[in-house]
C-alpha cells in the first residue's frame, strides 16, 4: 500500500530525512518513532505530497510526486498541529471536507458519532478544547473511510483520559484493508497500537523492529520517581545506591534510573529495606 525508497528531504541545505526506505502492507499498523526533530512529520508531509522530495513514494501504487491529488484521495490525515477555520462549526468543518472530497454529507453524522462529538456538532471550532479539536481532526480524517490513515502525534495534546480514549479509537480503526502510520515519541503508546516500529534519528532509519524490541534495541532508560516520607529519603537513597541503582534525591523522594522492563525491582528493593512507599510514577 505504501512504498518509500531512498526518500531524502532537505530544507535549504539542512537534510531532515536522509535516504529512508520502508514499505507498509495492507492491514498493517506502523509507527514512525523518534525524538523531536527526527524527521517524522516531514516523512508524513512527503507521503501527502505537501512538500517536494527526492526519492520514490508510492501510495496505492500511484507515484505521489506525479499523482499527489489522487493519492490524497486515499489518505486520511490527522496533523500534529490542527489548523481549522475557527469561525466554522464542527458540522460545517466536516461539510467543507465532504465538499472538498466530493462525498455525500450523510457521512457526517456517522463520523461525529464515531469520535463522540455529537454534543459539539453545532459549536464553533474556536470554542473547542484541545481534545475535542483532536477528535474533530480524527473525524475529518475518517470521513472518506480511507484505506490509509496518517496520524501525526495523535495524542500529543491530550490529557490521560482523552489519550486512553484516542488509543482505544485508533485500535478500533485497525482492519485487514487499512494501513495505519502513526508518528509518536511515546514508547508505551507505540507498543499498544502498532505491529512494527521504524525508529528514526536525525532523519535516518536506525531500527526497524516489533514494538516490544524497541526499548532493548535503543537502550532506553526510564526514571522511577518514588515518593517517601522525608525522614526516609536519605536512607532510601543509600540503600538503592548500595544495591547498584542510579538513584538521586528529588523533591519528596528519590529518582531511580531503571530499564523499562525492570521498574518493579527498584520498588521491591525499597520494600525489602522497609521503606514506606507513599506514591510513585514513571518518567521518560
Amino acid at each position: 500500500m505504501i512504498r518509500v525508497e531512498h526518500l531524502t528531504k532537505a530544507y535549504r541545505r539542512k537534510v531532515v530525512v536522509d535516504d529512508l526506505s520502508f514499505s507498509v502492507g495492507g492491514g498493517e499498523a506502523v509507527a514512525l518513532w523518534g525524538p523531536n526533530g527526527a524527521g517524522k512529520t516531514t516523512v508524513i508531509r512527503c507521503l501527502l505530497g505537501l512538500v517536494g522530495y527526492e526519492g520514490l513514494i508510492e501510495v496505492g501504487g500511484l507515484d505521489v510526486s506525479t499523482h499527489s491529488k489522487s493519492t490524497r484521495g486515499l489518505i486520511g490525515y490527522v496533523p500534529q498541529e490542527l489548523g481549522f477555520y475557527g469561525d466554522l462549526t464542527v458540522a460545517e468543518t466536516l461539510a467543507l471536507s465532504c465538499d472538498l472530497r466530493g462525498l455525500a454529507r450523510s457521512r457526517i453524522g456517522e463520523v461525529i458519532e464515531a469520535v463522540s462529538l455529537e454534543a459539539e456538532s453545532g459549536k464553533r471550532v474556536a470554542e473547542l478544547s484541545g481534545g475535542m479539536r483532536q477528535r474533530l481532526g480524527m473525524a475529518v480524517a475518517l470521513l472518506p473511510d480511507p484505506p490509509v490513515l496518517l496520524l501525526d502525534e495523535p495524542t500529543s495534546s491530550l490529557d490521560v483520559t482523552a489519550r486512553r480514549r484516542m488509543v482505544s479509537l485508533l485500535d478500533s480503526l485497525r482492519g485487514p484493508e487499512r494501513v495505519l502510520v502513526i508518528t509518536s515519541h511515546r514508547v508505551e503508546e507505540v507498543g499498544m497500537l502498532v505491529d512494527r516500529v521504524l525508529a528514526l534519528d536525525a532523519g535516518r532509519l536506525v531500527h526497524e523492529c516489533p514494538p516490544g524490541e524497541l526499548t532493548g534495541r535503543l537502550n532506553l532508560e526510564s526514571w522511577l520517581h518514588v515518593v517517601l516520607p522525608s525522614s526516609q529519603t536519605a536512607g532510601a537513597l543509600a540503600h538503592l545506591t548500595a544495591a547498584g541503582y542510579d538513584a538521586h534525591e528529588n523533591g519528596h523522594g528519590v529518582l531511580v534510573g531503571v530499564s523499562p522492563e525492570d521498574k518493579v525491582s527498584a520498588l521491591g528493593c525499597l520494600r525489602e529495606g522497609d521503606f514506606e512507599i507513599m506514591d510513585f510514577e514513571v518518567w521518560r
Partner: protein
Amino acid sequence: MTAAVGAPTVPRTFELRLVSVIARKVIREASRDRWFWLYCAGFAALAGAITVTAVPDQNLIGSGGFGRTAASLVALVQLVVPLMALTLGARYLAGERDSGTLVFLLCHPVSRTEVLLGTYVGLAGSMFAAVTTGFGAAGLFSALRSAPTDPVLLVSLAALSWLLSLAMLGIGLLISSTVRSASTALGMALFVWLSVVFLGDLGVMGTVVATRLPVSALFATVMVNPVEAFRLASVVALDGSLDALGPAGTYAVDRFGDGIANIALGVMAAWTVSAVGAAVLAFRRGDQT
C-alpha cells in the same frame, strides 16, 4: 468502523467543482472578516462623501455635472481599490499558512492550482461586492440629492474599478504565494501599492527629466502601470480629453485614437493573467506548509 470500504475514486487532474467549493469558502470568510467590512464601509463612505460634496457645483455646469463627481470617484478608486485588492490577496494564502488552515485544505484531494484559482475567484467575488457597495453608495447619495446622474457611466466606472481590482488581486496572490508569513506579505503589498499609486508617477516624471525619454517610451512606461491604465480607460469613459494626462495622453490620442481604451483594458487584463499565472506557478513549486 473497522476497515476501509474500498478505495475512493481517483479524482480528475483539474476540477472546476473544487474551484467553486474553495471560492465559496473564501467569500464566506471574507463576509466574516472585519478588515474587509472596514474597507467596504470606508470606500462606500468616501464615495458617498464625494457625491455629496460634488453636488452643489453640479448646478453650475448643468446636466454634464456628473462628470466632476465621476472624476473624483476615479481619483478615489485609484487610491482605495489597489490598496484593498493588494492587501486582501497578499494576506490570504500567507494567513492560511500562518494559521495552519492551508494544510487542512491541501491534505484533501485538491491540487494547488485549484486552491489558488478558487481563492482568486472567491476574492474577486468579494472585491465585486466591495466595488458595488462603493459605487452603489455614490449612486444612492446622488439620487437622494436629486443630482444629475449618469447610470451608464457609473456602471462603466464600477466595471473598470473591478478590472483594476482583478489585476491587483493577482499581484497580491503572487506575493502571498512566495512569502512565508502574513505580516511580510502585508508589508510587500503596501510597498507595491505605494509604487503603483505614488512612486510610479514620481518615478516616471523623474526618469523623463533625467533621461529625456522620447514621448513613445514615456507612454509605454506609464502604461506598464495598471493603475495608470485604469486612469486612462476611465478618462476615455468620461469622454474627457486625454490632454489632461499630459504629453503621454496627447501622444496616445495621436497614435492610437479610439483604440486607446482597448489598450488600457488589455494592459489590465495582461497584468491579471500574468500575475495569476505566476502565482499559480509559485504556489505549485513551493513547500506549502
